[in-house]
């Protein structure tokens, strides 16, 4: 047996897994989106846009906003870990910031449901500190709750990547800037950040795609209208047994996710040119 055949043989199991468990279902659901009553058509898409345009925009805006906030927070964390001068504070931050990464989304949903409710812990603390009166307390269990859940859960992941990239940035440039009297903020934005943008972008895109697919958080925090596309997909399947519109919604969220990847590709191509 030649080496090539052997190589193919070795790669076959994993290739089969990818083919049958990922590519095939993806194709089936993409095809299914265009099936209306045993015929081909765009009916599922018209229905999806008719009923869920608001939810599509809502999902894009919520996930987009979360991505921006995650970017800001992870740059802040990574920046402090790299440029911070207080060793104890840096050590504490380094130890603390990764925790949310190990907590599943559904648990995050459950925690925040108790934390953000009108009489939840957050408002109770604010009331007992005298920051507001019980009458002013409002529930955060709406779009804000989803954003908080996403940012809380995904920031550590991106921060981990960004901090790693920042740590490998050549210290000489930073030290030279310090010697010339640059502030730490300026060093972060003008020297460190430009060198880690690719890593930051990769982390943010992975987070964007992950957040697009989360069902538990919108279900637990805000399964109302408008809500995230995942909740609508689950509702179409569970309440109507309607896989057509569910597939169409799945394709739409795929397009949303792919558009981000496309932006990223363009950026990296431009950089190489």
């Amino acid at each position, binding site marked *: 047996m030649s080496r090539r055949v052997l190589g193919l043989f070795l790669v076959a199991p994993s290739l089969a897994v990818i083919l049958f468990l990922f590519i095939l279902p993806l194709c089936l659901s993409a095809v299914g989106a265009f099936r209306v009553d045993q015929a081909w058509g765009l009916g599922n898409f018209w229905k999806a846009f008719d009923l869920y345009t608001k939810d599509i925009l809502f999902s894009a805006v919520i996930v987009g906003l979360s991505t921006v906030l995650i970017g800001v927070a992870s740059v802040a964390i990574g920046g402090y870990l790299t440029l911070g001068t207080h060793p104890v504070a840096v050590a504490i931050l380094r130890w603390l910031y990764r925790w949310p990464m190990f907590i599943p989304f559904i648990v995050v949903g459950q925690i925040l449901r108790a934390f953000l409710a009108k009489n939840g812990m957050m408002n109770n603390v604010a009331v007992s500190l005298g920051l507001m009166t019980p009458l002013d307390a409002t529930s955060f269990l709406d779009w804000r709750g989803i954003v908080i859940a996403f940012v809380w859960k995904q920031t550590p992941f991106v921060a981990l990547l960004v901090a790693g990239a920042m740590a490998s940035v050549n210290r000489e440039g930073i030290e030279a800037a310090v010697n010339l009297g640059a502030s730490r903020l300026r060093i972060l934005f003008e020297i460190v950040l430009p060198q880690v943008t690719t890593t930051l972008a990769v982390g943010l895109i992975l987070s964007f795609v992950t957040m697009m697919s989360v069902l538990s958080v919108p279900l637990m925090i805000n399964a109302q*209208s*408008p809500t995230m596309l995942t909740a609508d997909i*689950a509702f179409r399947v569970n309440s109507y047994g309607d896989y057509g519109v569910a597939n169409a919604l799945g394709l739409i969220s795929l397009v949303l996710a792919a558009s981000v990847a496309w932006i990223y590709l363009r950026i990296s191509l431009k950089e190489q040119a």
Partner: protein
Amino acid sequence: MKRLSFAAFAMAAAILPAKAAELTVATAGDQNMVDYINQYLGPLFEKTYPGNTVRAVGTGAGDAGSQKILERFDAQSSANSAKWDTDVAVVHEKFVGPMVTKNYLDKYRSDIATGKLVTRDNAKMALGTNVDGYVMPMFNSQTAIAYNPTLVPNPPKSYAELKDWAKAHPKQFGYNGIKGGASGVSFVMGWIYAFGGGDANVLMNGPFKEEETKKWDAAFKSLADFTTNATLTPGNAGTLDLLSRGEIAMGPVWVDMFYSWKADGRLPPDMKLILPAPGMPGQPMHYVIPEKAANKDLAEKFIALATSPKVQAEGIVKRFNWYPGIDADNVKPELDKDTWNKLFVDISPEDLATKGKPFPIAPYNNAILEAYEKSVK
């Protein structure tokens, strides 16, 4: 020693004729349904018919769980399996119709003794499909409005009064929309029964007519206004949760869940229920046997046991605060007075008879949900 006894068991199992069987019970619904079978019904069955074992499979909460069972049957039917892997299934009312029309089920009710004890109409018609003989109701559950009497001393007695009350008390009424569980769905169905403009009986009994669905515009417009004045809660449990913390004063709940929460101390003991006119839907969950079940005889015995007055009294009424699946008069003698009365404190049997409605038939059901998605945003 231990290993030896295992070996002895294995030998015995191999030698004995394969009389002992494993009965597979697939159940939709929350974890409590699986627990009910694993902890109560299963052991009882194994004791009554020694040598057999019961394996409970939970397929998930709400309609999603029943949908999964239906899809499992679909798959085995199109694969032409000779023996299906489920002996008994517990499914929601909405999914029994399709199972019967697709000829998946065994017509077993006349074969078991307890079949005669079933009196309610919902064992004959399931949302517009004739299922007479194919199902045994496991229990009947009902939705109602739960309220906090300290905040609402005179609760609204009808949907019309409720509408005015909610306007006068913004954000004090909470419900979970239609995507977070069936208590919200039920509230919406009741709204259409009350304000839909058509004949609610047509919605409940059919036939389906397209023009009927055009009459709801005003009702949905008022529901959209109502909803802006209401608090939207995350799920069935979410409504009870907000109620217990005083964030809302009123909201639709499942009666059994309400009593269970109260019994656990998760709801203040003074909370009350009311069934507003013209009524709110409730639904049974049904025991069904697939036509191609591997252990049909045993499955019938299992269901006969599960629907016997004693089990209905002890398991369904006492443990779970559900209304019995068989005629309540047969269950009453098996229960002490307190337990019986507890079930009917806030909602009298008369209320239940006049204002406990079925859900609309499947096509209207879907049309109402979709109209809600379109208009209440």
